[in-house]
């Protein structure tokens, strides 16, 4: 994959250093993350265990009753390979209690609710163990908006948000993520047999090839077509990127004063650190 292939040693150093530095400078030693059994959270666990030490990493697997049992098995496999703290917290009682009140909710609402339920559990455990919540969204899904706002997209810091899914696969190989986890089809695991690529209508590898040229290289639509991309595919992906931009921004604030947060009151988050 031209342009997407990375020097994994260097990438690993930068990402491990990022987690170590950005967690420690807050005066915290620990990290908290949700371990779904999928590759993204597995890779973040590998990066964070190296950065913080396995004893300082707290992983939570939070299955719903329709989740594939293989997911929990894979999460456990990752946790055991790394020697990190691991706990399974079922979200079925909370989710079912809520949807008993609104039984007509569709799959999307149910999936979003589950993602947000998991987020509240992670933030509660963040307070309980004194650790920062680590994000596990990669660049491909962040750009496509394939995630739940305030759900799986919520975190204190995200080591893999600037690397594409193809690069997640590559780095996972290099860092020794178990093969079972690398090779299986990516899935949000909301219902049996669901896969991301089926739902998106294209493969991650196809999307990455396009996004890399569109976003990183800023190639124009004409240049992308000349490079062999299908016009409809380009437009579909471009629409997804634009349509989901709100998910990547903080809420907008109505400006009335001379100094509005983020607009003309500008400080880095690492202010004083």
């Amino acid at each position, binding site marked *: 994959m031209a342009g997407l292939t*990375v020097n994994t040693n260097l990438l690993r150093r*930068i990402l491990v250093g*990022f987690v170590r*530095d950005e967690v420690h400078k807050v005066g915290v030693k620990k990290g908290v993350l949700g371990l779904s059994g999928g590759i993204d959270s597995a890779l973040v666990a590998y990066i964070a265990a190296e950065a913080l030490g396995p004893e300082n990493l707290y992983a939570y697997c939070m299955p719903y009753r329709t989740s594939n049992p293989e997911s929990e098995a894979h999460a456990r496999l990752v946790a055991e390979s790394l020697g990190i703290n691991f706990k399974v917290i079922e979200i079925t009682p909370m989710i079912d209690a809520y949807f008993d009140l609104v039984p007509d909710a569709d799959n999307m609402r149910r999936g979003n609710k589950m993602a947000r339920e998991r987020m509240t559990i992670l933030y509660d455990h963040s307070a309980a163990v004194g650790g920062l919540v680590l994000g596990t969204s990669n660049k491909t899904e962040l750009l496509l908006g394939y995630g739940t706002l305030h759900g799986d997209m919520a975190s204190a810091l995200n080591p893999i948000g600037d690397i594409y899914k193809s690069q997640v696969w590559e780095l996972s190989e290099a860092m020794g993520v178990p093969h079972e986890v690398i090779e299986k089809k990516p899935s949000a695991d909301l219902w049996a047999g669901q896969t991301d690529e089926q739902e998106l209508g294209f493969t991650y590898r196809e999307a990455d090839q396009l996004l890399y040229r569109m976003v990183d290289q800023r190639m124009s639509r004409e240049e992308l077509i000349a490079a062999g991309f299908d016009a409809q595919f380009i437009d579909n992906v471009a629409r997804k990127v634009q349509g989901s931009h709100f998910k990547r921004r903080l809420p907008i604030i109505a400006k009335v004063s001379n100094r509005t947060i983020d607009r003309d*009151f500008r*400080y*880095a988050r*690492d202010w004083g650190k």
Partner: protein
Amino acid sequence: MDFTVALAQIKPKLGCLDDNMALAEAAIEKGIAAGADLVVFPELALTGYFLKDLVPEVALSLDSPQIQRLKKLSERISIAIGFVEVSSDFRFFNSAVYLEAGEIRHVHRKVYLPTYGLFDEQRYMARGERFRAFDTRFGRVGMLICEDMWHLSAPYILAMDGAMTLICLSSSPGRGVSESEGLGSAAAWQKLTSTSAMFLNCRVFYCNRVGYEDGINFWGGSEAISPSGEVTDRGALLEEDFVLAKVDGGALRRERIFSPMMRDENLAITVKELKRIDKEKDC
């Protein structure tokens, strides 16, 4: 004259003047203890880089107690260090000060404030207006701050002004992870420093910081480059380091004998043509 330069590849804390002063003073003492004659720090070493609205809050005037303390230390070792300078008319500059023998020998205010990609310097800071070489006990020196070096004219002017040593203070964000061995930004800088040294028959001391600010890494890799363009010493990538480089004074003389490009450089033609270009642009 042979001498030793220390490149203090530090990790400043964003907006924490006191902590960064302590870091700088510790590095200066370390340099003195190691027998270094000159210690070079990164750009904005006393403040951190992505300051945004913090700029006025961390700015120092040249008569501030911090600069006075550094002045005092410069009785024992020469110092080049980056900070935010506030002028008497309340402009804020991304500046570098060179201190020697208890005196300020030179202040360079960054001319090229990048405002593209991840950079936004000119929103917060005022632009410097000059490139001037100055005399030190190591001969004539010119200082550049990071982006300045990417403008061919800047090191050229300093070299024409007699500088034989170029000091570049930098806070270069690491980016461009690809298939290749190093970072894209590091590879580009390494080409630049080495080529500049070679073109101008100057030695180059490049000091870059490390650490992360809001997820952005600074890659370090500070280096001392001989006038032939060879890297004699290089700091660690992405980690704090303290590079002690022994500078062979004779190398400069020998290089200027082998490759007398600066001797042959024709200032009159350059000035004439630049004036013509400038005039034609006005039309």
